[in-house]
């Protein structure tokens, strides 16, 4: 990605964004910045405020307070200018049932000021990109859920937006379509488009996102490059699962002691999970200490940390509050 694309003139800046629904505060003054050309994942459990944030950024929801700049345009003061460079794909976006796939793309292209040959070329390219050329004459109502999602994605990319916001874009898509979606989003980001998305398929986000934001209860808990956020949220710590030949009480006691140094949690009759900040050398030493302590440990394995655990951790933290 070239350096010129990584400026905030082509990126997204959200400052102190607050949205109230009646008495309920859906977003508590969240702030984050995404440079142009980044793929930013907004993560959080259901009801965390992701869709509200997307709708506010897309000019569909009037915020109670805050500033939103999309590629240098003030989305609150000049929404029309923001809309010209923005594409928003809501979760299960609607399509007009009385239009054919290509007619719909032509309509969207004209709404974004594309006419004549330019319009026709972009429509062709869009159908090609989402693999719907064969179904171009089908009415939108005749398409499957995944095909509709692909058609909406094509319509979002027609005018080559500088900011692309996608709420659960992979809903209803098969694995092939998901792979195509990932390729399409990477290609957009490579061209300098800022991509902001959410997905329940968190493993996909891990592959795709360059940075993430964690939302919980309308608050932005953390935001930044993916690795840094995972590390800060504690997911970067090593997690080990140990199985004992007998009851795990002795092992739990030893883990909690200064010698063990990694408080554990029982996850089964004879299984304990423990977590500690360590590198490979320290982990090897830990294995030796466990063996030497004679606790009857018969198996040890590392549990891979993931973005999914991070979100689950958030959800549990929210539930315990």
């Amino acid at each position, binding site marked *: 990605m070239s350096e010129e694309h990584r400026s905030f003139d082509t990126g997204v800046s959200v400052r*102190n964004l607050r949205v*109230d629904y009646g008495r309920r505060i859906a977003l508590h003054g969240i702030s984050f910045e995404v440079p142009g050309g980044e793929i930013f994942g907004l993560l959080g459990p259901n009801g965390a405020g992701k869709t509200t944030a997307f709708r506010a950024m897309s000019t*569909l929801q009037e915020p*109670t307070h805050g500033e939103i700049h999309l590629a240098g345009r003030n989305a609150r003061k000049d929404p029309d200018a923001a809309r010209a460079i923005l594409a928003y794909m809501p979760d299960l976006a*609607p399509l007009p049932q009385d*239009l054919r796939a290509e007619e719909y793309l032509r309509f*969207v292209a004209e*709404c974004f*000021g594309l006419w004549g040959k330019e319009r026709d070329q972009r429509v062709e390219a869009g159908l090609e990109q989402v693999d719907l050329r064969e179904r171009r004459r089908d009415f939108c109502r005749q398409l499957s859920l995944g095909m509709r999602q692909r058609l909406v994605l094509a319509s979002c990319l027609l005018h080559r937006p500088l900011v692309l916001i996608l709420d659960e874009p992979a809903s209803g898509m098969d694995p092939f379509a998901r792979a195509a979606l990932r390729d399409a989003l990477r290609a957009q980001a490579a061209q300098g488009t800022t991509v902001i998305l959410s997905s329940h398929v968190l493993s996909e986000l891990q592959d795709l996102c360059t940075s993430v934001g964690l939302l919980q209860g309308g608050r932005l808990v953390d935001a930044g490059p993916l690795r840094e956020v995972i590390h800060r949220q504690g997911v970067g710590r090593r997690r080990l699962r140990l199985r004992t030949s007998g009851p795990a009480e002795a092992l739990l006691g030893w883990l909690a002691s200064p010698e063990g140094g990694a408080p554990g949690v029982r996850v089964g009759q004879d299984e304990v999970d423990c977590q500690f900040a360590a590198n490979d050398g320290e982990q090897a030493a830990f294995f030796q200490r466990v063996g030497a302590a004679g606790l009857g440990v018969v198996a040890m394995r590392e549990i891979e940390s993931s973005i999914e655990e991070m979100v689950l951790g958030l959800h549990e933290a929210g539930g315990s509050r």
Partner: protein
Amino acid sequence: MTPFFSPPAWQIWLNPIVRRYATARLRLLSVAGWSLVVQALAAFLWLVVYFAAGKGVDRPRAALAAWTPILILQGLIWLLKGTFSVAVGIAKEGAEGLSESQRLTPLSAWQKVVGYLIGLPILETTLVASLLPWSAVSILVGQVPLAVVFRVHLLLITSAVLHHSIGLVAGTVIRQKIVAGTVSQLLVITLHFIVPLLSRFGLGPLGHLGVERAIAAELLPLQGIGTPSAKVRFFDFELSLNGYAWLVMTILIGFLLQILWRRWRRADAHLFSKPLALAFSAWIIFMSLGETFPLLRDGTLFDWGNRVIAKHSHGPGQAELAGQAATVLTQGLIPLGWAGMFGCMALLSAMILSAIITPTLEQHRGARRAHLDDPTLRLPWTGDARSALLWTVVLGLMALAGWAVLVEQLLDTPLLHLVITPSACLPLFLGAGLLIPLLTWAILLEWRGPKTAGLGVFVGWIIPVMIGIVGILSGMNPTHWPKWWIGLSGFALPFYSISQSMSGLADLSDTLRELRAPWLLSLGGHAILAVVMLFYLRRAQRVSAK
């Protein structure tokens, strides 16, 4: 990023929304099917009328007569079916979320309004256009002057735009497509059959929204029926009926388009901005006064009272009795009742406009929180989230001015000015009778929202009147407890205020004096209630932002 080319709103053939509906609704099979039905009907109607009317009259006259069913058919397709398509179409777009997608496109709000207004009824417009050859034959054979042809079609087109604007507003406000379609049809029926009845009682401008009168005024003289140029009396002027009807429709279209424009700019915008509500109120009052004054001056406003008496006075010995009753009615009850009715309608219209511009407590909370977060943020005076109380006072003063001018004119008429003496406190009494209930309503509305306020009005203002009416009809003396029940209602206060502003009504003065106590009690009660609610409203607004 693509350089954006946005065609001007008036280039409707380049409007993407019009093109989208032209694509979807003008598919060959659909148009062919509808055209077959419409052309067959048109052919049948034209030929039947032509041959039926042709017996005994010359060909031009028969061809002219055959134009009328074609115009009616065009009216039914365009005004009835077209309005239904518009209301259902836009409600469906809203319910399915397509309006939101449309909101995200960088087309201007005007382009979107014009696009839906022209695009949604495009099938009906095409069908109406397909009937033009039948009109052309009638016009050519019937030797209709081109000026008449132009005026008739201008009125028809204006009426269609008005109807479609109404449908678009109905479908925008009501998100259920069946309800929106039904409401749009009810509005069309109201516009053509119920509103003209109201126009007889001084709401003249409303009578011109149905367009039939104006078109009939153009066509009938050609067939030797009616006067060549029908007129409308407006204050001291005599205006051409069709020009006046066109003007009334055009101004109303302007207000409706403003509503749609505001809604496309912001989904949660009030239908009227606060200044626009004042302008609308001023327009309604001005037009009503303009049409009522001539009716007042020649006494025709009260003709229906005399007609009712005449209808029920055919028995032996009834004539003298009827004469006395007519005197009491035309010189007392009817003018007073009518003046009270006008005050009540002025109150009601101010209440409706107040409900449109009043912010919810949530809107107020949002604005206050934003201000607390950033003290430099100040809402403009005209902002939707601003309190509507002062604006409601202005609305009330405008309604009061209109009402007072009308009452003054009423008392100036030759019929009444020798009989009734207005009290020196007339403006004060009228003001109290209109402003106190209006402010009570406005404060409740802003404090608890439209549902609670509506329920409050039903329980506090409508049920007592119902109880009072049942009491009177069951044989109770109206001056006993029914006067107290009815007096509880804010809607009754304009009537009571009028009754306390007059003297000299020999037969009625005792009765009117009986109303003084409930009138004062009701005014006082409403005033105290308004002050208490204002206190709670202010407290709720202060607390809401925390």
